[in-house]
């Protein structure tokens, strides 16, 4: 059970997240949809703790002030003030938007770095799993991450996040830049992971259509507030959502 | 009894370096002695000496000469120095400072660091402008003359005729090396090779091996970086059949013996001015050495010691004779100066403002040429003041 209560994030005076509460029960997929600048990435940063690091760096440079409010609970423990790496230790792993992979390390090394927290055996299994999921990566094991194509980098980023053996996996726009076939793989894979490993998955997307069928519960973000929530079915049948996210 | 205004002597020195701190000690020692004796008698008034030392950092790599010049200006403008004694220590800084000195019309006696003949040459060329500058320590040509005499002697007694020159990559050292090469060739010596090492080199094996192969009997060295001690260590480890001699600041210091673990034995070093190691050059020499030891707890170290000490006395003498501290009068008095100092007779050449050099302390300033023998610095040249003979390393026999 991963729970975010009344998350609020201000970038200087601009509110980017406004009282967003998210409930992610174990082994469920939570979808978060919203258009540009709805605050999806901000939410992901807040959940994974990266926002604390962003905040620190901004302060160092004397830039804008970032304020974060709200509380986070993982299985009842308060993780609000944990640094990102400690949250990762607890199993909250973010697969960031824009595929921040390690450009100078090879694909294999990227995956191994991802497995920093897991045991040797897990690592081996996970590598097999990831390479099976994304056979395309197999051709490039020794290529440096930075030279991969956009979509391949996206696959690598997802794969790397899986290597960390997460209990709560945060996927920020995982489908961006993937070809239809791979979108399919990712969507199916997501579902499979939930079912087999019992991982809680929170996924944000603009392109809701492929994701909607697999989610257990979804939120619509608009201008930083959660304006609507419900199961996949409910969202799908809401006329506003339909026109905005499924293009009718 | 109103205290007279003290005479301020400014000393721009690189105080973190051998040639800076030893000069500082020399100057302070002299000033103390003069002040205890009542000060300088300027036309009947007793004025004390006040020493203002300023750190120029000019021997440090990466520090612009401008910084040293600013320090000199600070002495003149802010500390109101009447005379400048000591540095700047680096040749180019000293040369650059000449213009400043003439701009401010301040007399300076250069005592340490600068060996380049360019200094006296410029004074001779443009006397009107640079007449404020004096130098009471030796310069390259006479030092070379000393070395040549020594080598000729070795040639006659031991039959040496092959030399190998190793110098540091700085102007005065290269000039010294070139000078030596020419002079030796003229005297029918064979100069096997001349190597120029960048500042900071710690590995001399290439050159040493080469010199050994080619049978050099003299290693002529000219370096003023501490790393050069490594050269002697390597030389001693290789047991090369050659005698090292030259100008090397690492080997000037008493601490050299310990630092090399005795491996620097037999090195012959030119201390530029007499009195920088215990010797009986004039009656004043040992007095100076003892006073120095008493005040600072160790023997004079680098080559700037006795000259810096003397410079203060020279100024005192000139001021007292000029009866004023006015620059022009003092210049005239310095030019006509003549008395027995720590390292011989103190006279400035009237054209070049360079101390007059000689092998006889009764005639002029004498070099301090020593050899390291059993942990001691023994004066071995010029013959008139020598206290020991040159020894060869046992493996050369």
């Amino acid at each position, binding site marked *: 059970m991963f729970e975010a209560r009344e998350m609020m994030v201000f970038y200087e005076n601009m509110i980017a997240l406004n009282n967003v509460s998210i409930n992610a029960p174990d082994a469920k997929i939570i979808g978060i949809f919203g258009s540009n600048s709805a605050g999806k990435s901000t939410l992901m940063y807040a959940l994974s703790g990266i926002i604390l690091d962003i905040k620190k760096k901004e302060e160092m*440079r004397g830039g804008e002030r970032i*304020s974060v409010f709200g509380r986070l609970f993982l299985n009842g423990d308060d993780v609000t003030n944990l640094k990102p790496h400690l949250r990762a230790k607890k199993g909250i792993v973010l697969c960031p938007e824009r595929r921040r992979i390690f450009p100078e390390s090879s694909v294999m090394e990227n995956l191994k770095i991802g497995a920093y927290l897991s045991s040797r055996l897990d690592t081996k299994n996970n590598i097999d799993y990831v390479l099976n999921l994304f056979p395309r990566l197999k051709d490039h094991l020794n290529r440096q991450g930075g030279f991969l194509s956009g979509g391949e980098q996206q696959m690598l980023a997802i794969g790397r996040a899986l290597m960390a053996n997460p209990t709560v996996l945060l996927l920020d726009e995982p489908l961006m830049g993937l070809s239809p076939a791979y979108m399919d793989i990712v969507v199916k894979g997501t579902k499979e992971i939930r079912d087999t490993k019992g991982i809680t998955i929170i996924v944000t997307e603009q392109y809701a259509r492929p994701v909607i069928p697999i989610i257990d519960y979804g939120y619509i973000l608009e201008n930083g507030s959660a304006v609507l929530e419900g199961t996949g079915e409910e969202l799908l049948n809401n006329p506003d959502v339909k026109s905005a996210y499924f293009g009718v | 009894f109103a205290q007279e205004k003290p005479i301020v002597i400014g000393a721009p020195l690189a105080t973190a370096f051998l040639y800076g701190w030893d000069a500082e000690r020399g100057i302070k020692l002299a000033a103390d002695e003069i002040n205890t004796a009542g000060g300088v008698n300027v036309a009947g008034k007793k004025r004390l000496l006040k020493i203002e030392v300023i750190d120029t950092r000019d021997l440090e790599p990466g520090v612009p*000469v401008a910084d040293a010049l600013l320090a000199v200006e600070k002495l003149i403008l802010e500390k109101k120095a009447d005379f400048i004694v000591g540095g700047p220590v680096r040749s180019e800084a000293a040369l650059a400072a000449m213009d400043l000195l003439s701009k401010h019309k301040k007399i300076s006696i250069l005592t340490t660091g600068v060996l380049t003949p360019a200094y006296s040459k410029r004074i001779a060329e443009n006397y009107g402008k640079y007449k404020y500058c004096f130098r009471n320590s030796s310069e390259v040509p006479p030092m070379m003359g000393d070395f040549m005499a020594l080598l000729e002697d070795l040639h006659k007694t031991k039959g040496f005729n092959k030399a190998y020159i190793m110098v540091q990559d700085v102007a005065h050292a290269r000039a010294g090396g070139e000078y030596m090469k020419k002079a030796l060739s003229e005297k029918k010596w064979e100069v096997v090779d001349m190597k120029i090492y960048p500042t900071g080199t710690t590995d001399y094996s290439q050159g040493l091996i080469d010199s050994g192969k080619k049978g050099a009997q003299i290693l002529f060295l000219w370096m003023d970086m501490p790393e050069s001690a490594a050269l002697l260590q390597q030389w001693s480890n290789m047991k090369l059949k050659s005698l090292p001699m030259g100008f090397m600041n690492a080997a000037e210091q008493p601490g050299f013996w310990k630092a090399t673990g005795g491996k620097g034995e037999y090195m012959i070093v030119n201390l530029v001015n007499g009195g920088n190691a215990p010797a009986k050059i004039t009656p004043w020499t040992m007095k100076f050495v003892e006073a120095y030891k008493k005040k600072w707890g160790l023997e004079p170290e680098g080559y700037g010691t006795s000259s810096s000490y003397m410079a203060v006395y020279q100024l005192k003498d000139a001021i007292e004779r000029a009866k004023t501290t006015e620059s022009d009068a003092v210049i005239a008095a310095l030019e006509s100066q003549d008395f027995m100092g720590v390292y011989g007779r103190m006279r400035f050449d009237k054209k070049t403002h360079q101390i007059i050099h000689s092998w006889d302390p009764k005639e002029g300033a004498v070099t301090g040429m020593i050899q390291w023998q059993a942990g001691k610095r023994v004066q071995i040249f010029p013959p008139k003041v020598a206290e020991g003979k040159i020894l060869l390393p046992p493996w050369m026999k």
Partner: protein
Amino acid sequence: METMRKERIDRGVRVRASGLYAISSWREMLYLMGPPLALIIGVILLPVILELAPYWKRVINIMCVYALLALSFDFLANYVGLVCLGGAFFVGVGGYLSAIFNVYLHFPVYLSIPLATICGAFICTFLLMPCLPLRGVYFAIVTLMYPLLATRVIEALDILGGTNGITGLDSLPNEYVEHYAIILMTLFFLYAMRRFVNQDVGLVIRGVKDNDQAVKASGISVTKMKAFAVCIAAFMGCFGGAYMSHMYMWSGLSMFALDFSIIPMASVVIGGGGTLLGAIIGSFILVPLSEVLRNFGTFRIVIYCALLTGFIVFKSEGIMVYAMRKYHQFERWVKV
């Protein structure tokens, strides 16, 4: 309590000040123009104020030379993205050229300095051309090597006066010319650069820093833009060098000294990178600081470095960034 946050609000004036014409009242005008005016007037009056402390008057000149170098470093590093550790190279080239013009070719001072500045800027740009494709640290290192190489070459070939340098340059006509030549140039460059980086060309150059590939894709030659920027920076540096060689009537190897690269950089860091003004303020703090500390002898560098580190650690964003924020914005606690 938990739901309070600190808010920063622009002081009204600044918002309206994007075009000067928008300003209505004298008070607002003063508020905006006050600090720059204070700076300009203060710096211009400095030589007069310091009449009583002749030594400190000399320090002004050095201070301004470092300020120019810092300006050039700040511009290159924070607007063009070239971290150039070759400030000393600019100084050296300017200094030597000026010496050559003045001593060997007998040009008068008022000709040799401008000529050295212009020629120097072109020569430096030309010599740095091959390095322009380098990125980040690599550029920094190569530019660091340039002044070292220049000294070694002059030393090894024994040209241009060898290690002794070129002496006997004419000094500037009088003390006041000497002061104001550099002060006015510094102020001129400061305000010219501040305008320049917000002009369209300046924006393009800033674009090069962020993403040169995109600049290429917009049909602009990146090399040309970089060369142009380096030329401007070198112009400032060479002026500093040429001026300094005349000030000390001497030019030599130590014109390429590392300090000319490092101190400007430190000035920029403590002044606040990317503000230009910060670079000037930084050197106006650091250079006199080093003079004040001179009394400590050898220990002064230690104190100096400790203070410098302190500045960096406690005002990591830089003095100017901090000051501007405080001046233009106020903070208050609000309930969320």
